[in-house]
């Protein structure tokens, strides 16, 4: 263990420079986020993830956000275990009818102000599962969505860009209100 730890010191961090926030995502967000809600939030955002029936591909890339290369927490973004602790719900999946009630309840349990980020192609419109008796065809069919992050699955970098766009938007408006 000592050798491994020592090497980590010598080689320096693997963590990469922060990506630029996604312009399109930023624009979408600016329209939707309620201005009054921002004043209550500082920089840190707590994220609760809900898999509403994804193939688990999106989850793999969300997990990757926690690895040494992306290190999500350095941006003040962290995943929390309860919706009651969350500012943001990330949702993946087409979503399935079987998950509708659970998603609605999770949304209801999240305190205001809150944002919903739909991650992946399925979450936008059902993706390749659209048209089945078992799916609803987009997260917005169940809860209001503030931001879509496309991709099948989106790379960790795309997810990070989308989440950063969310953060930037919150902060910009936060400052505007304070002034």
């Amino acid at each position: 263990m000592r050798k491994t730890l020592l090497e980590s010191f010598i080689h320096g961090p693997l963590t990469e420079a922060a990506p630029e926030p996604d312009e399109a995502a930023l624009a979408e967000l600016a329209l939707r986020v309620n201005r009054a809600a921002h004043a209550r939030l500082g920089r840190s955002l707590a994220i609760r993830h809900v898999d509403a029936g994804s193939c688990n591909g999106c989850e793999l890339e969300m997990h990757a956000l926690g690895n040494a290369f992306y290190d999500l927490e350095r941006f003040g973004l962290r995943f929390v275990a309860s919706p009651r602790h969350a500012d943001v719900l990330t949702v993946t999946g087409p979503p399935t009818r079987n998950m509708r009630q659970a998603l609605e309840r999770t949304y209801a349990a999240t305190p205001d102000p809150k944002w919903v980020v739909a991650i992946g192609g399925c979450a936008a419109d059902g993706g390749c599962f659209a048209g089945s008796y078992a799916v609803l065809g987009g997260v917005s069919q169940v809860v209001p969505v503030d931001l879509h992050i496309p991709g099948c699955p989106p790379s960790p970098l795309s997810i990070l860009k989308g989440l950063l766009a969310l953060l930037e938007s919150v902060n910009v408006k936060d400052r505007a209100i304070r002034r």
Partner: protein
Amino acid sequence: MALLDGIAIRNVASGHRPWPRAVVGDDGWQAAIDRLVEGGAALFGLWGDTGAVHMALIDAGAEIAVLTYECRDGRFPSVGTRHPPAIRPERAIASLFGLTPAGASDRRPWLDLGFWEERHPLGAAAPAPEPEPYAFLPAEGEGLHQLPVGPVHAGIIEPGHFRFTANGERVVRLEQQLGYTHKGVEFLMRGATLDKGARLACRTSGDSTIAYGIAFAQAVEAAVNISPPPRAVYLRALMAELERLANHFGDIGAICNDASFSMMLAQCGILRERVLRAADACFGHRLMMDMVVPGGVVRDIGDGGAGAIADVVGETRRLFPRLVELYDKTASLQDRTVGTGIVKPEPVRQFAAGGYVGRAAGRAFDCRKTPGYPPYDALTFDVPVLEAGDVNARVWIRIREVEQSLALIDQILARLPAGPLLVPPVAADGEGIGFAEAFRGDVLVWIRLRGDGRIDRCHLRDASWFQWPLLEVAIEDNIVADFPLCNKSFNASYSGHDL
């Protein structure tokens, strides 16, 4: 056909490849169940069709056969009453097709959680009735309490419901209720083009996208009787081993993290990320989705791709042994994994559990080896097997498989044949069976094609079908706090199971 000896057959279906499909009556069906009960064959799959039920058997010689029972009045003789691994597949058949397993004691729905607008969506669909509350199995005794967990879990995890009955910290019974990620994959397969079918197959369980791609492609190729070009076969194996490496790194790290040893998660996370980046460099997609299609693969290894893979293999060979040593010599970690979540060899054999769940408890099955499929028949590798059946054994199987995958990648890169990537399948009718060894175990795909090249019926069976029930066995008498550890060591797929 030793497997079918002693099973009365009415007729053998024509155009079912590469193994036979036989239509049987009551006597033949019962003889097959006898074979399962005696242990002469294992249940490889059990799925519904229009007015019929199919059962895939595999024996110790890795011979495979599909038996078909044509239902009368929408009924078929229950397999699950005598052979428990068939219970959940049978309940799924009843919920999806409306076919009744005659004599079955457990009539509760499976996958259908009462939220669909119609019942029996793959059979004679009808408006859904008012859902009844799901009756969990009882556990009675003094001081017992229930812990309902899920479908939404704490963490970035797929959804499913776990109903624990515990006495203090000790788990008396775990019952799973799955189906939350049911997307209707087999419904969408009906009438789909092969392109659409391949895309669906690759999204049955995202972590096994290559394995599903291969199993689906092999089923189609068997049905239309073509072989993919040699270069494609080797590239498929290359992708499959990269997928296995990435998942095993993820699992080893995540298991240790659930035993509060986060350093392994951090270090294994680095190895995993490097593999995914190499995959991206080679094939333009980190998970390599949609690269495998019927007839071959769609992309060649890009410029610098082989170099990127060789770098990752070299880096892993340098770093991984140190992590293995760390795992082996950290007493606090061993204290959590050794002797936790034991599944004994007998249930593993009965359920024919594949992957590390089976191989950690004495079942040496790996479908790359037997029955085998190209190019693995030309490559040298071992199938590691242990007996203990605990979390520790499931970790060690993964560790040994990482080593085997690295050796396989060396061989694949050294022998990668030149030539075309794709022989597009011609439109033809036929039935085919295909399988592939995903990182968590064997994936089975059965397909029936129509003459216009579209899919008539496609069934995909994840290894998880025969692993999830064993998780209920593994947790018995363990403490609630060890459930995440047991669950991670199984890492069964929700999406692959729920379809």
